[in-house]
């Protein structure tokens, strides 16, 4: 198991630059999720953006304005999860806290950074170009919690998009894999993880139909964002016992999406549940009886 280059701020910036230069080298698989302990400053942000091939200019005032909105957005997320799911998973909240969302606000088709849009007061999806969108942070929080991620989990995502969802999960799970089918988007987004030190994320551009069969043992969580009339049968084969597959349905500019959650029973048969919690609130008080997820498990 390899460790990230350095946990110091200087090492972080230097490591980001070095990683950008070596972006074609294979990444270590199976590395543990490493919390980012370097302070997230304007300089760190600019360096990381530069290292990811997306240079940005930002004043200190602009950076501070974003950071000022973040705690309010965090409160919003927590309240939303409690209202919709009965509780806010501490692991999900910690992941949101760790990840700088402004780093993911970028228009890939025009090459325009848009960090000033992060943590907006009215959560909304943002077009990224190439037919992709950065979903609104409430919907992403909901889906992340529905996935029920655990620290020993291995996750596969088909449809990397902005990379935010897989980044969120990577802060919780052991390993994260993501496949993007749109070539220009995938080639651009695969450079963004290393500068943040997310060494447990592997991405590629290609066909997600067969999943990632090279990963031994399969996956605990599979997210498929581009399904047609059926969920690819090969992906069900790669579900571990007790695994969940999540398929969001609907156009990406809604406030959230309808989620189909698939699980396997003891016989290996697939069960599904249509989750509309983003749009509808529970009818009864049954939510109060659902046990809250325990932190660290």
């Amino acid at each position: 198991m390899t460790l990230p280059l350095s946990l110091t701020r200087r090492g972080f910036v230097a490591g980001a630059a070095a990683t950008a230069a070596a972006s074609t080298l294979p990444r270590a698989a199976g590395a543990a999720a490493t919390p980012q302990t370097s302070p997230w400053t304007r300089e760190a942000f600019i360096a990381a953006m530069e290292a990811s091939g997306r240079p940005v200019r930002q004043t200190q005032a602009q950076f501070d304005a974003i950071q000022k909105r973040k705690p309010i957005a965090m409160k919003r997320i927590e309240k939303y999860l409690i209202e919709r799911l009965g509780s806010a998973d501490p692991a999900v909240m910690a992941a949101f806290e760790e990840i700088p969302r402004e780093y993911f606000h970028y228009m890939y088709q025009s090459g325009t950074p848009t960090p000033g849009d992060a943590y907006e007061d009215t959560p909304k999806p943002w077009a990224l170009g190439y037919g992709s969108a950065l979903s609104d942070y409430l919907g992403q929080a909901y889906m992340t919690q529905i996935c029920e991620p655990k620290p020993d989990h291995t996750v596969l995502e088909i449809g990397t998009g902005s990379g935010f969802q897989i980044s969120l999960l990577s802060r919780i799970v052991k390993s994260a894999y993501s496949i993007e089918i749109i070539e220009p988007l995938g080639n651009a987004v695969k450079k963004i993880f290393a500068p943040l030190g997310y060494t447990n994320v592997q991405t590629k551009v290609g066909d997600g139909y067969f999943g990632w069969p090279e990963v031994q043992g399969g996956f605990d969580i599979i997210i498929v964002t581009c399904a047609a009339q059926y969920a690819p049968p090969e992906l069900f084969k790669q579900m571990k016992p007790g695994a969940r597959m999540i398929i969001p349905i609907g156009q990406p500019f809604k406030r959230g999406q309808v989620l189909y959650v698939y699980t396997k029973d003891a016989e290996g048969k697939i069960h599904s549940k249509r989750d509309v919690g983003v749009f509808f609130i529970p009818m009864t008080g049954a939510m109060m009886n659902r046990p809250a997820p325990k932190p660290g498990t």
Partner: protein
Amino acid sequence: MTNDSTGQPEAGRCLFWPLFLISAGAVAYEIALTRYFAVAKWSEYGYWVISIVMVGFALSGVTLALARDFFVRRGAVLAASLPAVLVLTAALGFHFTVTNPFNPLQLQNPATWEPQVWNIAGYYACLLPFYYLTGIYISLTFVMNASDVGRVYGFDLTGAGVGAAAVLALMFVLHPFDLVPALLVPIAASALLTRGKWRTQGTAAALVALLAGEALLLLGPRAAFNDFKSIYAPMNTPDAKVLAELRTPRGLYQLLDNFTERVDTDISNNAGMLGLPGPPQTFGLYRDGNRLAALPKPMAAGTPLDVGYAGAGLDALPYTLLPKARALVVGASGGFRPAAVLSLGAATVDVVETEPVLRQALRDGIGTSPPGLAGRAHTVFADGTLAALDGKQAVYDIIDISADFMDAAEANLTAFTTDAMVAYLRALKPGGILSIPVSIRDFPVYALRMLATVRAGLRQAGLSPAADHVLVYRSAWSVRILVSPAKWDADRIAAAKAFADERSFDLSYYPGFDPVAARANLYNDLPAVSFTSGEVSADGPRDAIADEAGVVLKGDYSASSLAFNLDPTTMDRPGFHTVLRLAQLDTILKRLEILPQPEISGLVNLAVLAQAIIIALLVLAVPLVAPGRLRGRAAPGALRPAILRAAIYFPCLGLGFLFLEIFVIERASFYLNDRASAFALVLTGMLIFSGLGAMAESRFAGREWRGIAIAALLALGWCVLVLLGLESALMATLHLPWAVRALLVILLVAPVSLALGLPFPLGLSQAGTGGMLPWAWALNGAFSVVATPLANLIARNAGYSWVLICGAILYVVALITFPIARKPTP
């Protein structure tokens, strides 16, 4: 418009050819814009373009009404210069349309809709100038040739008809994004045919404008698919290729090769456990950027299509219940469906394939994709299910409608109506099975509407109680409704249960079904949702369809039937994705985000109607603002125009003409089994024949009452005959070749169109010399805008027959309110 320095019209047969070209160019531009929207965005927003067009015309009429003399004095200069200005505004309008970042998907999110409204305003800003100025040109021509109104109107309408036909022909040759550059040419050419002392300067200006416009459109930013259309992602995968392209008025077809393309069918999530493979890789056929079908990849001669997945499909159940069936497959899915059905054990397969390009793919292949039916003889019906089943009784064991059939062509909606259900049941053998697909991915309530339609069909076929003849089962995303002339017995139900259990499907209804008990063994939890309150059930696994299927089949009211329109669809009211109750607009707007795309068109229709009514009321208010301008300076003793009667007469004409046209287009869509051809034939036919009819206006000089009476009574008589006898005539001739049916459509519209061409110029002949003439023209245009969304609303709620009835009533009102000019009181 004019040809001497005093601005007086000159008699001569060539006088109105510039008007002919500008009308042709304007209509062609409008149709080209609607095609742009259908391809680049989504077609319901192209409909908005038509409303922008008519707003431009209405505003131009108001301008002429209020400032008639100003424009007449400058008539010669305007006649010479407007062609150049129109070319520039058309080019700029399309340029700014193409570069407008409008994303209709964002309209559904309360957090993102506002900038999109500004983008819509941008469309108005860039497209209105062209149509406003076109309206100025046309209405000024009317004003300056008030004594020859019939010929002016005739040239206007025939020009519009020829323009429509020309652009439709161009669609076979040009990409939809390249139509507008071609259409600048006839508009510029109108300057060459303009008479008068400014002709040379006008022609030079038009030529310069044409060169500038072409440079802008051909060298500037190019139109492209919205990056959220389904074609976008496949086109941008590694090594993606466009293998073939077909250009038709019906759509732009593209055959794609990329790794995402597979047969798109609902298969069991347990396919691996069953030892069955997933769907094979294919080519993908797209129409206007939307996926239409999977087509086979090249393979060695004699190799059958790879359909190993068929046994895992949701649609496989009927073939396990009836081995060696004689099957009718409605929708060939590129050839994969008949092959799959044969692999499931059917003995013979007949095919209904209504989409002409898909039919071509079956027969001849497209590009390097081989014929989908190669190696096996099948009877292929091209003209829809009712035509295919005409006269057939007890012929088929299984009638199997493919899951992609409804979306393949708009005319295919008729296959899901009560009338179609009756035909299916008649064509089935006594123990036969009809298999109907419903997608519940977006809106599970669609399954209940289909059940209501099935129930209506069973009752009409004399099979009662309907609930005994239906079995419903589903996956997470799709439902199959199985209907049989025989009641479902215990053996069949048990076989269905075993089939479903093996594949993680659920039974949602059969005779004797207990929805509460079934919850304990659900594979696919589908919680019940309240559209009204915004709540979802949270008390354990549920099957929202099972909860209400039995109630719907009994004809009782259920929670969904109170919140949604679950009325059975019929041939007169075929729209399926119209479950929203538009009267509950406040609830709909609260739930805007969860509405599926097909339901959005109903809301767009309402928005267009609201806008149209406001514009129409503004135009109606002109006499209150400036009554003197309308009457104009009249010689003593001259007849005075009847403004109040005109305020009713001209709107009736604007509404009535469109109502009749929309009715005929709808019926022709079913008859010709193709909406695009129906639209083209009816629009062109009605415009040209009414233009010819308008030219007879001068024969009724001094006897205008006679003219309007003949026209109105002919129209009324035609409406009555059509209402009483058209459906029978259509069904009796459904078996004729397509070309003969197309000719019959023209023969249907020709006589009434000749009559309908008269009332407008006859009314204008009473307008006098003031601003009344352009005001009347504006009224007609403004209410034409109201007509389409209003007709859609009437059709949605009451059926297309009522659109026809309303049209007939409007012509009776027009007859009564003919605005005959009066002698002034002493």
